[in-house]
């Protein structure tokens, strides 16, 4: 079967995933007074972040389509397992 590779992030269920830079990461933790351990997790093997090449400890910014707020921003820290 010859077919362009399936892109996970184009599926209607998957929101946009972005990797945060070091500076943005520090700002985020400062803004919410949290440590990265306290954030929700995303597995490093998660198919939605395969192309971001995220390492454990990185923070992924997720822009969800929300029925109540329009766009809702969510953060997950890449976990080890």
């Amino acid at each position, binding site marked *: 079967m010859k*077919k362009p590779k399936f892109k996970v992030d184009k599926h209607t*269920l998957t*929101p946009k*995933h972005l990797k945060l830079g070091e500076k943005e990461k520090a700002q985020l933790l400062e803004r919410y007074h949290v440590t990265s351990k306290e954030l*929700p997790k*995303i597995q490093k093997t998660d198919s939605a972040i395969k192309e971001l090449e995220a390492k454990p400890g990185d923070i992924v910014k997720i822009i*969800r389509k929300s029925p109540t707020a*329009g766009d809702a921003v969510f953060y997950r820290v890449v976990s080890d397992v």
Partner: protein
Amino acid sequence: MADIISEYEDRLPPKIIEDVRNSIAKGISETKLKKLLEATCEEYKNSRVAPGESVGLIAAESIGEPGTQMTLNTFHFAGVAEMNVTLGLPRIIEILDGRKELDNPMMEIYLKKPFATGKKIEDLRHLALQIKETKLKDIATEFTINIADLTIEVKLDKDKMKEIDLTTGKVLDAISKQLKGYNLRDNKDSIVLKARSKEDSFNDSYKTKEKIKEINVKGIKGIFQVLPVKREEEFVIITAGSNLADILQLEEVDAYRTTTNNLFEIEHVLGIEAARQAIINEILKVIESQGLNVDVRHIMLVADTMCVSGTVKGITRYGVVSEKSSVLARASFETPIKHIINAALVGEVDNLDSVVENVMINQAIPIGTGLPGLTVKAPQKAAKEK
């Protein structure tokens, strides 16, 4: 004017800003617009959940109460075919428990242009047959073992094969790919299998006979029923049985809209965020089909909770509850003795930070006005004088 609105982007969600943009009168003065936006901010601030509000409890009540009115039955699929759909309370429980094996796995397969319009019904039916899994036993009329020379003969139903566009050659290919160590021979109306090794016993032949019944000769594994349905302007294929990973590889399928009701397949193929969205969609689907009404916010909270750890976890003692840090909180859910004994063995400490623990020992719970605590810095002098 646009700059004034964009100044508020940090303080208001995009949807509200959009609403403001759409509803202001043309040529509104800057001061008035500022006043309006300030009022909106104030209103937005007041409508938010107060810190310390027990949102989880409210979500539980809001989903639980309409849950009492839900039906307990599974229903047949509207009209055509004998397809089962789990609805009502059993489905809600299935989703919230995060069950891996569903009672009725289903897929909704959206199609690409020439198929979706349904102009060529023949093509559509052909595609549906391509997807449906056919096992060897579905096209065979008889399986026999010849005891003398230990061969297995499979008689094929030619009419059935023609119906689903299969040839004996294709069947032979499929069998040889999935079964090692056997020589295959095409015997016109039947296939004859003979073991290559000499030491094959009757017992082995019997086992193989049972095994080849389940061999997949055509279609996608796990899909045992297909049903093309017209939905609004396009045709969609609904299946019983689910295999998202393989279906998405098909050329005719619109991979970006096709979904399944199996949350774990979604998590595996599309990631945890897609699974969260799928949980919300599935719960809403059940609630709406029952004519009930629950605010999405409650469902979003539940879905978020199930997905915090990076994988879908059910609201059971093995899932979300096992992640709690407090021993007493875990013990208060189910199997208390097990949790307390295990905690005692490893010397766990409970900091009494959360609600249930404090209810147990009759203390003010950290919710609402019980949330803020007081910290007193004892003056150094007083301590010394003692």
